[in-house]
């Protein structure tokens, strides 16, 4: 049978005036691979990475050794990421360049198998009363009207309840198990080449997670940070040079790849008659396979980081500037496994000077409840001085020989030299209140802060001044920050402080 089929293929090719067929070459996998992961541009920093819904992406660069034949050849790259964006694929190293690149996403599925077998013979296997009978038939309906077949006896519909099954003779050509990237090249002579294949792929994400452990009575903190990276793809990248890229990268569209449309469409055999449909008894649905939950991943809880303080200091990533972005390189090759999460240390600094501040905003007669703030300067002289990628910050306070979580916040991307503020909690023992008295044409304001803690605290209030209003007669010297008058004061232990000032309309000239 096969020679005849080949003959037909040749004949039809000749009839269609096709050029000589390109020889297929399959590259089963990369020799070496590097993975640079970019964070989901639309995920808020406070939203944790969801391993089941990764919307970041990665640039994957693979080196592959291929033996190309003389003449035209089609090189099929197997083992690329399932989330590949084929339009981003770059192939370099082919001696005579690339004629064309193709991503074939006509996938083998129940539906495509049926659709492609239209008008072709199949076998119906029928199980009735414990007996199995087979019968040859030809498919006569499309996938939206499955399944009407023609048998020796006449036209039949395949039983929609599952007592009958279709058996196909072969997989129609052009259907592949998963989307496959291929390139067409033409070589003057056969040779072995090393090509580099790079492409962007969806289904990755990463984030920095900082852990600050307070020390020296709140005057400094040990700062440790993890890079958490996740691969939601079906492909594993073994011994990969692994990087993450910090900063904001512009992306267009932002959708997942459009390929592989066919595999999602439902396909089932329809029933011949309503009575049948009403009486149908489906076998009970099998329990859904348990989702790979985080317990199966090699995730490490953030709170587990304290091991870094005790025994060995983990190896940290190495940073370099990449244009206006930051690139963090894992110093050793590592396996970025499919459907997994990995953590590598980002930084480890001891005794970083920090300020603990209670802050409120004052606007009109309203004063916001004080929030607890951790403030540091991203400077070498102040224990930091390195680009800090955006991420969550967990703050711990030592208690005996353990540490307890006292607050959680986040930071944006912070360049060297910037002030770093983390809002970690709402205060419970520090309160702010305001009184207001209108006397004549002027308004007297009084802002009082109370501290129930047995230690003094630093308090700051930014005063929002409306258009055309001037502040005068303040009982304390006011600073200025972000275009607003700022009252910064030390509140004594178990004490209170009051600021009085006047708000006057600016007189028009």
């Amino acid at each position, binding site marked *: 049978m096969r020679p005849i089929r080949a003959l037909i293929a040749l004949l039809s090719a000749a009839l269609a005036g096709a050029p000589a067929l390109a020889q297929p070459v399959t590259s089963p996998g990369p020799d070496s691979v590097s993975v640079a992961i970019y964070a989901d541009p639309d995920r808020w920093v406070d939203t944790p990475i969801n391993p089941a819904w990764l919307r970041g992406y990665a640039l994957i660069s693979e080196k592959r050794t291929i033996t190309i034949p003389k003449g035209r050849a089609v090189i099929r790259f197997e083992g690329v990421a399932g989330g590949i964006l084929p339009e981003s694929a770059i192939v370099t190293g082919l001696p005579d360049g690339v004629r064309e690149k193709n991503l074939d996403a006509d996938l083998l599925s129940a539906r495509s198998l049926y659709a492609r077998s239209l008008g072709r013979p199949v076998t119906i296997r029928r199980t009735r009363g414990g007996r199995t009978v087979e019968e040859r038939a030809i498919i006569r309906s499309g996938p939206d009207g499955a399944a009407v077949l023609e048998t020796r006896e006449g036209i039949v519909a395949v039983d929609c309840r599952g007592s009958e099954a279709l058996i196909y003779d072969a997989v129609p050509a052009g259907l592949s198990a998963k989307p496959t990237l291929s390139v067409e090249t033409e070589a003057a002579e056969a040779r072995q080449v090393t090509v580099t294949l790079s492409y962007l792929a969806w289904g990755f994400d990463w984030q920095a997670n900082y852990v600050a452990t307070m020390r020296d009575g709140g005057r400094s903190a040990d700062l440790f940070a993890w890079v958490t990276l996740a691969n939601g793809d079906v492909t594993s990248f073994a011994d990969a040079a692994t990087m993450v890229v910090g900063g904001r990268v512009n992306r267009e569209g932002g959708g997942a790849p459009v390929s592989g449309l066919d595999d999602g469409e439902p396909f089932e055999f329809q029933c011949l008659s309503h009575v049948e449909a009403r009486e149908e008894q489906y076998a009970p649905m099998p329990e859904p396979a348990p989702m790979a939950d985080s317990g199966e991943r090699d995730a490490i809880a953030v709170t587990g980081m304290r091991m870094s303080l005790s025994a060995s200091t983990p190896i940290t990533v190495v940073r370099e500037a990449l244009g206006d972005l930051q690139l963090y390189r894992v110093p050793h090759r590592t396996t970025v496994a499919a459907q997994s999460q990995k953590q590598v240390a980002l930084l480890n600094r001891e005794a970083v000077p920090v300020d603990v501040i209670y802050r409120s905003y004052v606007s009109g007669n309203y004063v916001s409840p004080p929030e607890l703030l951790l403030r540091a300067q991203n400077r070498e002289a102040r224990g930091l001085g390195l680009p800090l990628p955006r991420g969550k910050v967990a703050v711990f306070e030592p208690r005996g020989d353990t540490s307890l979580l006292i607050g959680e916040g986040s930071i944006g991307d912070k360049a060297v*030299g910037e002030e770093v503020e983390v809002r970690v909690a709402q205060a419970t023992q520090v309160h702010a209140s305001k009184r207001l008295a209108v006397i004549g044409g002027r308004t007297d304001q009084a802002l009082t802060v109370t501290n129930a803690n047995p230690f003094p605290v630093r308090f700051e209030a930014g005063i929002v001044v409306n258009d055309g209003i001037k502040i005068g007669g303040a009982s304390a010297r006011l600073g200025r920050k972000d275009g607003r008058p700022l009252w910064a004061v030390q509140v004594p232990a178990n004490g209170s402080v009051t600021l009085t000032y006047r708000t006057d309309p600016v007189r028009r000239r």
Partner: protein
Amino acid sequence: MRWLALTLVAIPCAAEAQTAVPAPDQTAQGEVAVTIYNNNLALVQDRRTLSLAIGRTRQEFADVSASIRPETVTLNGAGLTVVEQNFDYDLLTPEKLMEKAIGRTITLVRTDPGTKAETREEARVLANNNGTVVQIGNRIEVLDASRVRVIFPSLPPNLRARPTLSVTLEAESGGARPVTLNYLSTGLGWKADYVTLFDEAAGKIDVQGWVTLTNNSGTTFNNAQTLLVAGAVGDANSQRGYRPRPIPGNSPGTETVNREQLGDFYVYPIAARTTIANAQQKQVSFLDVSGAPAAKAYFYRNNWLGASAQALSADTVLRFSTSRDGGLGDALPAGTVRVYMRDARGAPQFIGENNIGHTPMGSRLALKTGEAFDVKVQPTVEKREALGKDKWRTTMTYRFTNARPNPVVVELAQSGLDNWWHDTRIESESLPSERTSADEALWKVTVPANGEVTLTVAFLTRY
């Protein structure tokens, strides 16, 4: 060919099979030419040879695009007159099979659960309204198709496995002749993808342009002569939506490329015949330029009274030209420009992308690739003073910080100067500005390496 195909599928099947089973992967398409536009539209020209008897005949055209727009079909051939064209999309389903059997005789096969013996009965379908009523001899029964097997004598006419185009033709003479079938189809489209490798130190880019065409029409076009038109035809009304304000440095060019043109559009033929498979995305190279000059810039646009308690990253912008002199020297069809830079080890890394529209040769382009980690702007509203009736002074400061080891120039645009009033003035400024439009003023601020600069501006407005 036909007997070969029949031999291949020599199965114990009824000889009344209506058409020969096609050989695997055989197509009814003839010589196909596909012209693809940017807006999910393609013109398909299919030259087939038809063997026609003299007089009136009905011809079915298999393997036309599954996303055909049937109202656009035209058929041309010597000595042929089209009587009528039909597009039948009444699909064959099990339910319709029963419906069309009303009044006809079907065969019911029952299997005895004990003896496994099969008994056959003839039955007439009386009705099929939410349940099938049949007459077996003198009995009337409601058919329970889960207990009996139903065999229909034949396929009902006019039910199709898939939507089918058929044309009734009047031929002046018999015999084989070429006919040309023309139609529009959706599901085919293309765009350009540009791989741009930026060498910041040298101030140069290498650009490769790829045509990316996608086929989601549901049909494979075999050995098609393919032409790509850089334009979206027939959607003149769709370009009026919101567009973000451009970054300064974009301007359309006035040069003509030595490429084939079709009216207002450039056309890009694909050199050899190619097969455009269904669900395929195909890329063909059309541009390869190395060493074109390019420069990086920083840009920040502040809205009226925009202020932030934190410094905000400036946009990183890549500027280059498509001019013949000092540029890419080609017109660029609409698509996505992806920018790469080499990391410390020399491997290219992705630094961002942006979309471009159809860009004539000689244009200047300024594309945002991302936001700078180390170059930031913090705008602050310092004061709002009432100077009199409808007269206000607004003092703004803009603090520029640069954590990079080299000086940078940041372009700051203050917009909203012409929102509701028309006599906004800059009363004083610590650095000179350029009024780029009634609504915007632009400052070019040099920020020293690892340093900062503050710009102070006082605006006079009516509010």
